[in-house]
């Protein structure tokens, strides 16, 4: 059934479910974009170790390392939220507890990001100062 889209006003004030879905999409796209770059940099190994090392050396700067931190964050969020979605799909009662489940997922995400930020963040700071 064809239907003309309505003219969109301000954003719909959805709650946890809507925002977790938007983040899931955004992180999914982010990760796949990295994957393309990753396929390219790995393919360079076909031109020999020298070429590969030169390309990978680009990654050793604080800005790219910061992007790596973001990348790990996106992967972790996407993974945890994916598990959350599976719980909601397969456990009938989960529909009633989807808000606490969301916050539990968020807490796990933060907990996982603490050591990651510590490790990568230290490298960034060392590179900067």
């Amino acid at each position, binding site marked *: 059934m064809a239907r003309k889209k*309505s003219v969109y006003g301000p954003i719909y004030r959805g709650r946890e479910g809507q925002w977790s879905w938007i983040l899931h999409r955004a992180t999914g796209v982010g990760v796949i974009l990295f994957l393309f770059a990753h396929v390219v940099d790995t393919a360079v190994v076909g031109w020999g170790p020298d070429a590969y090392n030169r390309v990978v050396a680009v990654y050793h700067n604080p800005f790219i390392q910061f992007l790596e931190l973001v990348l790990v964050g996106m992967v972790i969020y996407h993974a945890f939220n994916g598990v959350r979605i599976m719980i909601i799909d397969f456990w009938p009662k989960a529909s009633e507890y989807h808000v606490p489940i969301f916050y539990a997922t968020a807490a796990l995400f933060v907990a996982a990001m603490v050591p990651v930020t510590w490790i990568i963040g230290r490298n960034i700071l060392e590179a900067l100062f």
Partner: protein
Amino acid sequence: MAVTREPGDRTDAAPDETVQLLMRIRRYNPELRADPWWDEFTVDVEPTDRILDALHEVKWHHDGTLALRRSCAHGICGSDAMLINGVNRLACKVLVKDVMPKVTVEPIRGLTPLKDLIVDMEPFFAGYRSVLPFLINDEGEPDRERKQSPEERERYDDTTKCILCAACTTSCPIFWGDEEYVGPAAIVNAHRFIFDSRDRADRERLKVLSEKTGVFRCRTTFNCTEACPRGIKVTRAIQDVKRAILFDRY
């Protein structure tokens, strides 16, 4: 505007106390302008009035050209679903005191606006019709009622409450973006018959809903559950149908 009250009725406001409510209403009239615009009205209402009363106040005393749908004014006909302060609600179920001092009213999204707060509901009802929302049983006329246990009735009790207001369907981000998705309300009404022990057409409905325009478009954002003015656990019903398709003997 005066509201009839029975003695002993509870109200948080003194009778006849009036307040001023600022209403921002998204207007649209293709005969006047190509694009929608915002109008503002300040109306005198009582805190215990509903947004529908405030809209009446606008239509009857400020601007008679304001177009909106409503019928029962008591939350059962499903005519006046609107985007009120950014969420889908029935205008006849939101109280003025809960939005004071101002409120934003827009038409529901994802359906073509016709005029002001009125949208073309036909695609919504087309989705509804596609799931065969009526009892199908080819076992011949029974000579008495078809028996059902309380447990069997309980299974689809929640989804019998739908009033087809489209608040759920037009709160769904997937429905906004996907022209073909049947939407939450159609699935709720399919659920009502799929899990009815007297019905024999669950196979046909599950077939419709297992297509790419069906339940698996749902991304469990729960906007629908939050929007339903009847308190139906819409996402839960959709998940029930997904699991029926996954695990049942089809």
